[in-house]
């Protein structure tokens, strides 16, 4: 499999000043030493609870945020080494679909000028060619081109998300980060958008990173899944492996907490995890999960476990499965 993207020891820290007077700034490690590869044609799901850094990771990969440390190699070239012009040119190939279809479309722009914006920025062609492209892409995502003179607020959430997708796909990218792309939508509309994303992937040979907190959605759409907790990757495995064998206690807890849509199962579930997600500003020592982990040992409190390949292609960062 061709490597499209390599993320190496990526870190993204935020300095939080609690007030202007104090010189002691807290550091929020939103993404803390994250490494993974992404092969062409994959759909890599990233799951985790709020504050785990999945969204920051997605945006840093596209260099929408600056990094603190580490590398993001796209076809072998480091994005953060690129000059402004090179980066702008590369944006044609990597795109993003956002969570909130209400705030991710400029309310003052008509649909046509929202979709033709990327085409104009990257000098797609003559005005007539651009109009033609806008109409064809609107059809492709299932919005009647007849409505192109309308404003975003005149559409429903699902239709706005289609418009967001149309924009992202206008330049025929090869890599798209979907950040909670269906989370704000009603269930029946969510299914339509998931289908659309899958259709477009087949048609345009796309590679996705699919970030979501909804485990059912990620499990359905992804080929491989990364589980994150407080800025770190705790487990990576193919969808099938992860279903069969969840190695990290957090992964187990997360999946068991997810409500199943079968009332007959309700009393059979094991309840594992207790307590709250700790603040990412001052995470627990050692393995960040140890205060909530029923299997925590001494070493878990002292040292963060490395992410290790325990089975072929199945990584986990947990002391239960390795020696220090």
């Amino acid at each position, binding site marked *: 499999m061709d490597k499209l993207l390599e993320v190496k020891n990526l870190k993204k820290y935020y300095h939080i000043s609690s007030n202007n007077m104090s010189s002691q700034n807290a550091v929020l490690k939103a993404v803390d030493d994250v490494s993974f590869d992404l092969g062409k044609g994959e759909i890599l799901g990233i799951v985790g*609870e*709020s504050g785990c850094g999945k969204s920051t990771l997605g945006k840093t990969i596209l260099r929408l945020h600056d990094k603190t440390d580490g590398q993001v190699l796209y076809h072998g070239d480091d994005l953060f080494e690129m000059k402004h012009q090179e980066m702008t040119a590369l944006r044609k190939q990597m795109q993003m679909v956002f969570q909130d279809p209400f705030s991710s479309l400029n309310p003052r722009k008509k649909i046509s000028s929202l979709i033709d914006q990327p085409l104009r920025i990257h000098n797609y062609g003559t005005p007539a060619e651009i109009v033609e492209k806008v109409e064809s892409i609107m059809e492709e995502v299932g919005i009647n081109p007849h409505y192109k003179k309308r404003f975003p607020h005149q559409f*429903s*959430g*699902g*239709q706005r998300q289609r418009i967001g997708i149309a924009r992202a796909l206008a330049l025929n990218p090869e890599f798209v980060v979907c950040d909670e792309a269906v989370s704000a939508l*009603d*269930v*029946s*509309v*969510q*299914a*339509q958008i*998931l*289908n659309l994303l*899958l259709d477009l992937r087949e048609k345009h040979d796309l590679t996705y990173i699919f970030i979501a*907190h909804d*485990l*059912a*959605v990620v*499990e*359905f*759409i992804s080929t491989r899944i990364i589980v994150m907790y407080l800025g770190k990757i705790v487990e990576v495995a193919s969808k099938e492996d992860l279903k069969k064998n969840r190695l990290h206690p957090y992964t187990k*807890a*997360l999946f*068991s*907490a*997810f*409500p*199943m*849509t*079968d*009332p*007959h*199962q*309700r009393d059979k579930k094991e*309840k594992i*995890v*207790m307590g*709250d*997600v700790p603040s990412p500003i001052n995470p627990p020592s050692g393995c960040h999960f140890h205060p909530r982990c029923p299997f925590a040992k001494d070493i878990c409190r002292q040292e963060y476990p490395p992410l290790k390949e325990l089975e072929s292609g199945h990584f986990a960062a947990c002391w239960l499965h390795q020696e220090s």
Partner: protein
Amino acid sequence: MSEETLLSMENINVHFNTRRGVVKAVRDLSLYINKGETLALVGESGCGKSVTAHTINQLIPMPPGVIESGSVIFQGRDLLQCTQREVQDLRGTQISMIFQEPMTSLNPVFKIGDQLADVFMAHQDMKKKEALAKAVELLKLVKIPSPEKRAYDYPHQLSGGMRQRVMIAMALASPDSGLMIADEPTTALDVTIQAQILDLLNDLKDKVNMSLLLITHDMGVVAEMADRVVVMYAGRKVEEGTVYQIFDNPSHPYTLGLLNSLPSNDKYKNSTRLEAIPGNVPDLLSLGEGCPFANRCNWSSDVCNKSFPGKTELAEGHSIWCHNATKVIAEGTKTNG
């Protein structure tokens, strides 16, 4: 029904007058909740589930809202005929409510212990000290760790999950909490926290013998919590039954479509396409007299656009409102693997 009915709503019609026209938010809705039961009111945005809840404790802003007709009988009294004062008393003591975003329903400038104590002092004539002790007791009941200390915290010092626990404690502050209305209580929470809150609600329901009206869009939450389910679509009740009837034998085209839309559905183990319901939720302004689901429905016929169908009872307690009930049941169950 052999059980005792706690609340029943009959033929509720609620509309809102907006500048763009009349929004018929709830139409001809009837439902009941038995004592000790959890009823889930499920549907997508704009289906009228929250309006229904607000009709019960009369939190509908009027104007623009208008409760056109119907009755809400709670323990033998019609709430729609009560005075504001009477409803207010009821709201504090026998009907309590928790919301999606607990931060907005807690007063940010008071300590949570004081806010809880206030509820006791207002409705039960307690002394401050006694009320505070009761408050701590309640915080313990909702499993907040070290409740003696937490009582002196302000709302912003607590996590989202903890705040929702405080809200639940507040709802339990009444001596006989008859009915708790939970409007999307876990939607803003992470899954591991959601699981804890749902657990807590189930525990408490048994402990204090209350009924729960659970409003949610999440079929997973319904499957975990509900005894009975009412499915709503665009202001109308379209299916009603026990949780097992609804999940094992969904019979209204909308319920079928909703369950088929879930990626967690077993039938998608080896599939890469979901069976989505086509189209969008209709604009409540432009609804006709027909079945609101007709334009998205695979089984719709001419009659569907003309009038809203009557009830078809499939089993005891399991009904759907669909013109083509027999056809849908024959064909629908086949596609629902």
